[in-house]
């Protein structure tokens, strides 16, 4: 049953087969889209007609490859920059929240902590429509009272950033808190007794200890932003993010260029995962 106990060979083989099936189930869709990105066909299906890079580089009318598709490239840039701002904002506020809830005592702490965790159990759809309703109400109010049109209060780039930040900060907080729990508080007290101010102690002692978690949380926030669709779809203005652009293409006009983009995403993520894997192993 476990490593140290003997098992019948039937049990071992059946269990191994199940695990193999499960991981095939995980890999299958990623493998299928990746392979079909290189199929020399105008349709996203088999049979295999030979290898081509058209869906990456071609610029003809019937085959517009990824790098010739300006709309697609623009949406990738939008997603990258949105992800960057979301990651910066949520890493800052999430880390503050982690320090606040782990190290400070104050009234209503329990309530605030509950609110900070709420995005874990609020469906992304709800977050999206709530923020849309609020921004619109605020925008209308400002327009009626001051005759000002503030872009932030309409579906727009910065509203997407704020919307994604609202839940990404929770994940940052949890990741940083997990590391902060392992922090030896006497180090901070030592700094304080050596006449450091509280802020100096946090900046020179606590933050360096948290650095790996903060960097990890930054990457997580970026990826959360980059792949989000549930919240984003309500807040999007005139420039779509990559998932929104892909979503409308899947529904209305699929060509294998979708596979080319998906393949690049899978490749990037796998690359990051492998780097992370070996970085962790060399540490052990």
């Amino acid at each position, binding site marked *: 049953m476990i490593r140290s106990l003997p098992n019948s060979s039937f049990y071992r083989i059946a269990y191994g087969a199940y695990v193999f099936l499960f991981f095939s189930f995980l890999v299958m869709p990623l493998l299928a889209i990746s392979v079909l990105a290189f199929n020399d066909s105008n349709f996203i299906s088999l049979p295999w007609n030979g290898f081509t890079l058209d869906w990456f580089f071609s610029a003809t009318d019937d085959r517009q490859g990824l790098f010739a598709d300006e709309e697609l490239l623009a949406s990738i840039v939008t997603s990258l920059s949105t992800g960057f701002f979301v990651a910066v904002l949520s890493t800052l506020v999430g880390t503050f929240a982690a320090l606040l809830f782990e190290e400070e005592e*104050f009234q209503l702490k329990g309530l605030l902590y509950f609110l900070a965790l709420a995005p874990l159990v609020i469906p992304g759809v709800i977050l999206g429509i*709530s923020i849309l309703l609020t921004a619109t109400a605020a925008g209308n109010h400002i327009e009626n009272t001051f005759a000002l049109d503030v872009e932030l209060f309409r579906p727009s780039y910065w509203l997407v950033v704020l919307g994604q930040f609202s839940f990404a900060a929770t994940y940052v907080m949890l990741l940083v808190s997990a590391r902060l729990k392992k922090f030896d508080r006497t180090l901070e007290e030592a700094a304080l007794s050596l006449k450091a101010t509280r802020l100096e102690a946090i900046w020179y002692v606590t933050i360096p200890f948290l650095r790996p978690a903060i960097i990890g949380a930054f990457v997580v926030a970026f990826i959360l932003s980059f792949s989000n669709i549930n919240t984003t779809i309500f807040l999007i203005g005139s420039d779509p993010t990559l998932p929104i652009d892909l*979503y409308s293409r899947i529904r209305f006009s699929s060509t294998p260029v979708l596979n080319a983009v998906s393949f690049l995403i899978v490749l990037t993520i796998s690359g990051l995962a492998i780097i992370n894997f070996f970085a962790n192993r060399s540490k052990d």
Partner: protein
Amino acid sequence: MNSNNKYNFNITFYLLVVPVLIWLIFMIVIPHAELLISSFQVEDDMGDMVFSFANYIEFFSQQIYWLTFVKTATYSIAVTLLAFIVAFPIAFYLTKVTSKKNASFLILLLLIPLWVGELVTVYGWMVLLGDNGVINHFLMTTGIINDPLNMLYTDFSMIIGLLYMSVLFMVIPIMSTLHSLDDSLIEAACDLGASKWVIFTRIIIPYSMPGIISGSIIVFMLVIGDYLAPNLLGGKHSLWFTEQIYNNFLTTFNWNEGAAFGFLLLLLSSGIIWLALKLSGQKLDKVGS
């Protein structure tokens, strides 16, 4: 502690608490209050917003709405159960059966679909399950079937998609509880002649209960609030409640009715999560960790 130091403590506290308060009040509390208020408003003949129960009455009087609501709830519970059944042997395998080295590689493989994002994986399933899809192609060229199986745009494909995007969130929490389960407990039970089934139901399952609860809550929440899998894999008849909300906001522009539906979905999901926490005696902050 001199007064100077005390002053510094306050500065730090305010520096930390102000951004966090801004986040929680402006991005969480006010929006959800606004959602609740909007759900009780309708436009009257003059174009003004007035208080009304009409949006909720609409929900209960139109069969299609509450049927969708009930279907979404029951399917979400079913998918959560399915995810548990599928995930448990995997979590056990990764923590207790295979070597550490194999496990860390397989965990990497497990995480890739999560980071790739739901849209890409849902698209992958469309490519696999379609009438001209990869699976039908293989089945037909090998002569197993003559006509393509109708798999895409059915409840089957929708459930596959929901399971695929959520199963990982069941595996990870169960793994983290199983990590701390001492192997010698299982060895002792085995030495005393307990069968596999008894070991499983009397030792392993009870021990991993906190992980199972955390996993179930996260999976349930993800599934009930999902849009892509029902919309792209379930097709026109998928009847998922989030789709009603999307339609209200993005197609018919009846935002107040959409707000009411959104609030009902929030009530449903938090109600079931609350029930799960109460029944298991677990705290919400355990779910996050």
